[in-house]
């Protein structure tokens, strides 16, 4: 691609400052030792040296941990409701990884299908994803088994490739192309740069060594749905802490609650998790009170139910649920050892 440009890493600050005019730029940042995407402070570009994905996925930019849906107040003539002001800036997510960009495309399906979710979609509209390819995937990453890869640019607007002192910039979508066209201070790439980028991509792809076999996975899961012994065995060590769901870039379950003081308050939503027994609890019964049913729900939702609805597995192989699990529960181990139907 002869048109590609590049930028020296030390000039990233300048670049982000420029982009911060038309967008609100979010970058990987570290708070209390946990990495997540945060508004760029205009100075710090140390994230360029991490070479690793964030702990908290960028789904938080469009589907925050907690958000107000509307406020209400009681006046003399009764209740009045009001939607929160929608002065959301266009978000530019800088340094998003290909897996997390794909995860957003999965959330897009879930929130668009049927009744549209206005909160998520208003944030996603006009957002721009500037991805940084993964040159240093974790052992727990398995994106390649799910049709992705460390430099998969399918779901991003711009892809950045680390070629040493510089980043090679690949324009992917029209929106990405337009942004690059009006960005000053970018250099043209040389043939040597292109060759280097190609090499980086290849060697990075080879670093994704963890594999799962997704062939016929829906059928296999259907076949063992009732296999209580299997599900009890694989869920035995699970603590039902829910961290795998909270940090999962494709998990989107939520709860809705009210908060009020005197005559006014708000209805808000917050992340919820299928790992929690109260998630499905009703006054008289609970269809998933037992842990093995909840673990089964999580695995089957991602690999059987969601694909039935949307023709895509709701897992991108980011490996967070493996890395962050306090008891080393490993979804790849389960998927690779599903019982063959007797």
């Amino acid at each position, binding site marked *: 691609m002869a048109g590609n440009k590049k930028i020296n890493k030390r000039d990233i600050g300048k670049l982000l400052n420029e982009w911060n005019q038309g967008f609100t730029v979010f970058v990987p940042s570290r708070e209390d030792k946990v990495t997540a995407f945060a508004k760029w402070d205009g100075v710090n570009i140390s994230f360029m040296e991490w070479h690793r994905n964030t702990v908290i996925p960028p789904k938080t930019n469009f589907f925050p941990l907690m958000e107000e849906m509307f406020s209400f107040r009681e006046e003399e003539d009764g209740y009045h409701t009001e939607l929160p002001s929608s002065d959301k800036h266009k978000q530019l997510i800088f340094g998003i990884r290909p897996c997390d960009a794909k995860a957003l495309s999965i959330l897009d399906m*879930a929130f668009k299908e049927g009744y549209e979710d206005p909160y998520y979609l208003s944030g996603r509209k006009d957002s721009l994803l500037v991805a940084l390819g993964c040159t240093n995937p974790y052992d727990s990453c398995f994106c390649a088994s799910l049709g992705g890869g460390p430099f998969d640019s399918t779901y991003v607007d711009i892809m950045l490739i680390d070629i040493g002192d510089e980043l090679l910039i690949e324009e992917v979508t029209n929106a990405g192309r337009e942004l690059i066209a009006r960005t000053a201070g970018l250099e043209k790439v040389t043939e040597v740069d292109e060759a280097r980028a190609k090499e980086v991509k290849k060697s990075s792809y080879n670093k994704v060594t963890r594999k799962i076999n997704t062939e016929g996975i829906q059928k296999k899961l259907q076949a063992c749905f009732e296999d209580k012994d299997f599900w009890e065995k694989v869920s035995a060590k699970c603590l039902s802490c829910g961290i795998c769901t909270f940090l999962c870039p494709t998990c989107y379950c939520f709860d809705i609650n009210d908060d009020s003081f005197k005559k006014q308050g708000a209805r808000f939503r917050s992340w*919820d998790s299928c790992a929690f027994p109260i998630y499905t609890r009703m006054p008289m019964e609970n269809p998933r009170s037992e842990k093995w049913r909840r673990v089964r729900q999580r695995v089957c939702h991602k690999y*059987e139910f969601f694909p039935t609805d949307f023709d895509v597995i709701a897992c991108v192989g980011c490996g967070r649920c493996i890395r962050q699990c306090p008891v080393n529960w490993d979804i790849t181990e389960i998927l690779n050892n599903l019982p063959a139907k007797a």
Partner: protein
Amino acid sequence: MINVDVSQRRKFFAHGNVYLPHVVTIEKIVEETYDTKTFYFNFKDKRLREEFTFEPGQFALFSIFGMGEAPFAISSSPTRRDHLECSVRQIGRLTNAMHRLGVGAEMGFRGPYGNGFKLDLFEGKNVIFVAGGIGLSALRSLIWDVIDNREKYGRMDIIYGARSPADLCFKYDLDTWETNEAINMITTVDRGDENWTGRVGFVPQVLEQVAPEPNDAVAVVCGPPIMIRFTFPVLEKLGFSPEQMVTTLEKRMKCGIGKCGRCNIGNLYVCRDGPVFTYAQIKNFISGEY
């Protein structure tokens, strides 16, 4: 592929936002039993009073501002449009709070959601209603619809049971249906009391005794999960096919529109693909629960 297309469903969003409730006022409260009340609602917005319609079997999310939301079946019939009814058993935090509300109190309302009963599936057929306890509220809308369009349907049986005579809901409806010659109304209780002269027996057993003919018939079942679980095998024994058995399910819900995740049975969401299902749709999941 998703099995349902909600684009044809009637939508009455407040300010285009599916989660924002309309304000409704309680116009009347009927004490059904010691723990169940029927609330009569109307929209504060006069235009909505005119325009709002729904299908029998659909539900809505009712909320007390500051307390929260819960789904309830709309138990009145779309053929009787001057108000909406919803019957609520005092059983959890929100329903307890609802029972403390009086006439004139305001609540939040969003809906209608869910698929409702496919009336063309019932037309020209004999319809057997099998209900337990408060479960009748989810069928009542359809029962009144069938009564109001009686000529479109064949025989009509209603088998309704409750734990005790004191637990029978909609007694005023039961009396009306009892005297209606076009309806075979059977009321039963699990345990009678000194004044009870009617039938005693669990709903599935009574159904087996009544033994309705499966030919050209549809059975509609709603009640506590345990009743539903024991009723399907009886219907199967009587010769009903899984496609001839219809039920409406209840699950914990938050969004009501297939997003928040908790009400699924396999890939089906009770709020989006249901709450009305044929036994054929859910039988693979219902045996081992979900």
